[in-house]
């Protein structure tokens, strides 16, 4: 599949790809016209048949999500999750800055399928340029009559607004996003009730990722059978893979879910291999929350199933960051612990206290005052916070558990020898100053 024709990124590199004119000239807004001729249920059925699994991280089938909406609902809301805050993920950013109309088209189809009247695009505040690009694209769509009342001359009306976040990782969780949209702190809600039954403003709500919705127009246009033909049966459709770190060509690449981490890292049309003089030691293959793999596990397939075999949480956002051998593993451990320590929302006890405690321990270790037993305590704390299926309201502590656990398990030798290399009694002295 080396010369896979990009689908989601087909407009990348095309001049003026963010404009309505160029998008339409390249076949845009055909799918939505087709969808509007179908009944909403038919659209849902088509997406269900395509087995489009959510690209946000959990991999829940989108069509299934839509079919959970109560049948007798009067008002449905659609939220587009553009709060891409998982490090090191940026595929939604690429989608929005290269092809905002594709997202809008997908949003219209999804809104039509779910019979929503309003679609909110919840975008993280750090996406400044992307906000302007998407907002201008929406303005264009409004002007063209593709959004607003009676779109495309049908009886269906849809409002689409961009709602800017304000810097909180947990707002990427669907109920956290809903709370944030309601103007509250982004504390995830307890489920049940699920958003499909009672979500934003207590109405049935569907929350979908940008990449998921960007796939929808293609499914409608070319049919579910075409979509399921791409990639293995459990992981259908094209997927965006991100790679960053010391590789020759960091970026976002599109492929069916048949590639391995090694392909992503080394293939010429992808990462293109390591920068000269660098050697890959480990890869965080699916965003920070999924965990780490060491150099001898690079043959892991990047699909929805294979990562579990390597002790990871799942595919996640399929955004890999390469860690070369000049990087101290203690630094990576600290970085991960710090991320969850600062981004925990503070609602559930395990996560609030556990992530902060791990942050403290990891910082001390990274600063050269660790103890070997700290690694065990960290490992236990990570597990106590809850591994899948989790103990907390949202999945953040599970996400915090996997990187910590896999780093300590897979790189224990390196960490321990680094700790043992510290001057004797140093940890004790540091702790005596601290307390």
């Amino acid at each position, binding site marked *: 599949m080396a010369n896979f024709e990009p689908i989601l990124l087909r407009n990348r590199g095309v001049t003026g790809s963010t404009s309505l004119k160029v998008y339409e000239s390249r076949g845009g807004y055909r799918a939505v016209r087709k969808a509007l001729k179908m009944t909403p249920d038919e659209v849902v059925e088509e997406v269900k048949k395509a087995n489009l699994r959510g690209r946000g991280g959990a991999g829940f089938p989108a069509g299934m999500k839509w079919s959970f909406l109560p049948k007798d609902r009067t008002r449905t809301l659609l939220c587009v999750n553009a709060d891409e805050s998982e490090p090191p993920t940026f595929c939604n950013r690429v989608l929005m800055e290269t092809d905002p109309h594709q997202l809008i088209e997908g949003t219209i189809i999804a809104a039509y399928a779910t019979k929503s009247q309003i679609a909110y695009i919840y975008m993280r505040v750090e996406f400044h340029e992307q906000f302007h690009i998407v907002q201008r694209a929406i303005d264009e769509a409004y002007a063209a009559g593709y959004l607003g009342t009676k779109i495309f001359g049908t009886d269906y009306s849809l409002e689409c607004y961009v709602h800017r976040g304000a810097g909180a990782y947990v707002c990427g969780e669907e109920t956290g996003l809903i709370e944030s949209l309601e103007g509250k702190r982004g504390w995830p809600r307890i489920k049940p009730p699920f958003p499909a039954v009672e979500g934003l403003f207590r109405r049935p709500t569907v929350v979908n990722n940008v990449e998921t919705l960007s796939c929808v127009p293609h499914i409608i246009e070319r049919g579910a059978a075409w979509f399921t033909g791409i990639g293995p049966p459990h992981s259908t459709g094209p997927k965006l893979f991100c790679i960053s770190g010391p590789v020759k060509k960091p970026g976002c690449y599109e492929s069916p879910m048949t590639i391995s981490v090694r392909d992503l890292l080394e293939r010429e049309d992808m990462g293109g291999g390591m920068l000269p003089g660098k050697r890959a030691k480990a890869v965080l293959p699916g965003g920070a929350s999924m965990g780490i793999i060491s150099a001898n596990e690079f043959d892991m397939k990047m699909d929805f199933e294979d990562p579990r075999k390597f002790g990871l949480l799942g595919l996640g956002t399929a955004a890999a960051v390469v860690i070369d051998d000049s990087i101290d593993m203690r630094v990576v451990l600290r970085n991960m612990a710090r991320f969850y320590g600062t981004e*925990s929302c*503070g609602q559930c006890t*395990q996560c609030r*206290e556990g992530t902060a405690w791990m942050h403290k321990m990891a910082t001390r270790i990274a600063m050269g005052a660790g103890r070997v037993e700290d690694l065990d305590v960290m490992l236990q704390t990570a597990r*106590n916070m809850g591994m899948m299926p989790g103990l907390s309201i949202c999945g953040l502590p599970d996400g915090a558990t996997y990187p910590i656990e896999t780093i300590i398990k897979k790189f224990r030798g390196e960490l321990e020898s680094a700790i043992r290399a510290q001057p004797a009694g140093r940890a004790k002295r540091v702790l005596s100053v601290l307390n």
Partner: protein
Amino acid sequence: MPKITIDNKEIECRAGVPVLQAALEAGWDVPHYCYHPGLSIVASCRLCLMEMMMPNPKTQELSWSPKLVPSCQTPVKDGLICRFGSDTVKHNQRVCMEFFLLNHPLDCPVCDQAGECYLQDYSYKFGNPTSRMVDQKLKNPKKDIGPRTLLYQDRCVMCSRCVRVTDEVSGTFELGIVNRGSRCEIDAFPGKPLDNPLQGNVVDVCPVGAMLDKDFLFKRRVWELRSTSSVCPKCATGCAIHVDHADNKVYRLKPRFNPKVNTWWMCDEGRFGFKYVHDKKRIVKPIVRRGMDHESPDWADVPDIVRFRFSELVKRDGAAKVAAVLSPFLSCEEAWLLCKFIRSLAPTAALVTGLIPYSGEDRKFPIGSNNGTTKFTILKEKCPNRRGIETILKAFGGTTLTFDEFCKKATTGEFSAAWITGGYPEPWVEKETAKIAEKIEFLVVQDIFENELCTGAGMIFPSCGWAEREGSFMNAAGVLQSFERAIAPPDGAKQDGQYLYDIAGYSGLYRATRIRELMSAEVPAMKELYVPPEMPAHAH
């Protein structure tokens, strides 16, 4: 009534409650912080997690679910099977307790909550004795969040009960959560402090020592206090309360669960309104006027003096010239004894409902709620037993007057003997009312503080604070509740019930229960004493 199975034991429980509540009521001690039966469910403390039998999505076979579920968020359903005794559940409790104590300052010796602290109780029962954390704890300064309340932020477990009280019970929204993650704190907006009339409940619901009452701060350790069931006398709502006292002194009042009256709450007016009981200016001795002199007789002589003076006047002026004013601060039993006594001497004596004090308007909470959603009401009627007195007067029949009618008649000299009871915490005798003292030849005044009537009184009896008496009050909604004696009356004084008992001609020790038996035989409305269900420890 649904039947659920907890730890292989089938129990019957109330419908519509969470599994946690059912388990607590059935005797399980399930640790929890964020759950409170009177507040919405947030399921954030994750301490009450349980294992539950669930059908396998594929095979529909019942098996223990792999995920622990919060028992506070799971409503009871007939046939539900769950367990709290398994290793996974216990492990989670142990782990949670470790997390709760990570940043806790462990300053129990100086914390006022020590002794009634859920964190202490649960650590002993479910936690580990040692902490593995060697790093520095987070420290937060304390906050003066309101005129009556202090917030010790570092003791907080972030259960958010206090925030929910201000949101859902008082409806005033003063408290909020600031920051995120481990730095979460409770806070109020500067200049918008916690000062609503129900703010004291914030201290009650706080399971740890984060919210403390300035009034009680450092006064006593809670294990020295003894708790007595009582009823708040401050308004006609009649909240069920606990009087916490030690060494004959009342230190604080706490609400007692009563589903018919106040549920879990009480207002600040009642909570801090007990101070008058320890006022130094109280009347503590019976006083008899002889000519221009006043002397205080022996309690043993009192019944004879009273009977003699009254019967003399009845003989001279007739029974209709006698009146008894029954204050709405009297308990039903005391009022009944007084009526009994007066009517036995003067069968046509007038019985008068005492002055009903009103102040302001009824206040409904949460603010802006209507009849359906009101959770708490502070009534404008500032006395506990108006309805009880009226019920008794109705049962006695004959001449019954309102206080205004009595005053009018008294000023025209229609009464030659009267027994006026008071017991109001605030001054209550107005200038006009004071004049009646001149027109009544033999006036008995029974009050807690000296008032304008006393100068003309032939006899003065000390009334006792409600914490020093026992009896029952009937609230504005007609719920009859009993209250017990918490502390002894001051030296020299005697419980109102006791001397009324003696005067009425009974001998021995006054027991409210005995009088209630006698009374309810004559006054059927007094038969139904409502005793709220006893809640297990940690049930809220």
